[in-house]
């Protein structure tokens, strides 16, 4: 790959709001460069078009995607999501990941999974899984292993409660530096949390009141500004002491 002048310069729409139809890149004057397109983008001949409204993101060296906050999740490969087992089939578990179609979780895609030891999941089991492939017109495929074949953190989540959120809130919770509300709550309370990029988060703690407090605080924080979040958090933490 030959470095060109164009290559060093990403699209000038990066971190700006884009709407469907916007052209973010013109490929005709880019020489010999590889691009990786994420959700909301499409190659249309010699140009890269936007397909959904949101913020255009760019990651070095060549990844582009559009971020938005919505209730429904559009699966894309590599996402860590929270899924609920809906049905069990001989080859697959059918898992709901809030997408347009149910996802398949092959019974062998567990660490050390063989025909002999197939896990038994009853309907309604909550799983932390990874999306392996997501193509249009096909059910997405999930896996409970990381790329190295290890279980990592994936698998069943016991106890606790699963809260719903928008995909935007889920992304904010996963961001680094950590979400201010999450950080503030973590200083005073001890709890476990698992966030799926598909707009679900699971909270567990020794006391159910803590779970409810954390879950509702996070849900409520979405509609608050940074300053309001700070005030709200201070009030909340005072009230529990």
């Amino acid at each position: 790959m030959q470095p060109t002048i164009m290559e060093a310069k990403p699209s000038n729409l990066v971190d700006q709001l884009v709407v469907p139809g916007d052209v973010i890149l013109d490929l005709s004057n880019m020489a010999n460069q590889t691009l990786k397109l994420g959700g909301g983008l499409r190659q249309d001949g010699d140009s890269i078009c936007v397909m959904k409204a949101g913020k255009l993101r760019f990651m070095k060296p060549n990844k582009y995607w559009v971020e938005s906050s919505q209730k429904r999740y559009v699966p894309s490969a590599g996402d860590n999501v929270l899924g609920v087992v809906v049905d069990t089939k001989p080859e697959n578990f059918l898992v709901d990941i809030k997408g347009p179609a149910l996802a398949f979780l092959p019974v062998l895609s567990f660490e050390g999974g063989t025909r002999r030891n197939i896990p038994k999941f009853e309907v309604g089991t909550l799983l932390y899984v990874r999306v392996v492939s997501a193509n249009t017109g096909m059910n997405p495929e999930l896996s409970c292993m990381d790329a190295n074949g290890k279980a990592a953190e994936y698998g069943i989540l016991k106890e606790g409660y699963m809260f719903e959120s928008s995909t935007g809130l889920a992304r904010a919770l996963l961001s680094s530096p950590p979400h201010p509300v999450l950080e503030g709550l973590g200083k005073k309370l001890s709890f476990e949390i698992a966030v799926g990029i598909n707009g679900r988060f699971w909270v567990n703690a020794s006391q159910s009141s803590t779970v409810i407090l954390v879950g509702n605080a996070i849900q409520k924080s979405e509609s608050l500004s940074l300053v309001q979040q700070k005030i709200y958090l201070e009030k909340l933490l005072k009230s529990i002491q």
Partner: protein
Amino acid sequence: MEHKLANSLIMTVNEKKFIESALLSDIRVDGRRPFDYRNLTIRFGSEDGSAEVQLGQTQVLGFVTGQLSQPYRDRPNEGSFAIYTEFSPMADPSFEPGRPGETAIELGRIVDRGLRESRAVDTESLCVIAGKLVWSIRIDLHIIDNGGNLVDAANIAALAALSTFRRPECTLGGEDGQELIVHPPDEREPLSLILHHFPVAVTFGFIGKENTVVIDPTHYEEAVMGGSMTATLNINGDVCAIQKAGGDAVSQTVIMQCLRIASVKAGDITSKIKDAVESYNTQRSLRKIKRHNPDQQGSSSDVAKRHMERLTVGSDQSGIASQFNEHDKTNKRNSTLKGFSGGPASWDPYSKGVDGDALRISLASRVAPVDKQKEESSQVNPETKSNPKSSETNSIALTREVGLEKKQSKTLKDAVKPKHKRRNKSNAS
């Protein structure tokens, strides 16, 4: 099949367990105690008879319309009302388009029973000609978002919409006195319905092995609960209806406890509805007051009264705006008139003074029967009083102007005159 799986609410085992275990320590997933109601907000639309109720996440739109129709044969002098429900798939993917499902029918019937069995709506006052023509009221309930406890929200929406609905006044007249005249709203103030009391539905859910009682269940709790009971009570604590369809068995003491709690909640909700309706009515009459000429304000409140009666709200804002322009024009032309202060935005100098009258009128129109004679006798007097007054204070130019611009019929004089004429005519006849 897969389609169906994706549409129904999927609850995890964790959630089911958690809701039950948290209830044992008297706390619910949204942070409420078992007997806390969710936040209730009532909004009204631009038209009379529409209300939007928000109960937590749940959102229901109520819309009331009226139509003249033939009465039922066994009740020749009673109007009728019917309830129609609309469960849009937008509210919840489990609602299927097409014919109403089980929940839709049950919801309609609970609301209907509460209103009908307790005789909350005065149907006899809806009669126009006994045996021939009555008003039939149609209540449409649209579920906009399902966050659980649709019954209570829909019931409140129906009550709020009913209490703001106004039907045009009907009288018999014409040559032979048999012709039906439906007075358009700009001619006579439309009448609101007579509601004797507000039957408020309060729903309880029974969750878990211990049958823990929760009030106003969310849709997660609805998915977990073993059974539910809806009690419809009014502010006096009269039980109007109870719905307990199947589900877990509940002991008598629990039901009595539920009814006691329900009567308290019914009182709270009734006062909330009444407050919302009252503020809507005040705003409605304020909108009307804005219509008339500020110069006549000082002359007499009777003038204002009659003026208000004649001019309606006009649901469309454009209508109001255009009339304001006309006001402006007439004012500019009448050089003798003075003291017109500014445009519509800044103008509202006397609103408080006339507000009481407006309220009185809206109350009077609600209570007073359709009695033409009475109306005449009560209103002819102030008119004779106020007419010379206003003509004194205002210049003669105004009257002349009005004569020329009869078609505009927006000024005070214009509003008064035709009625006066007609009254004389009817007196003569």
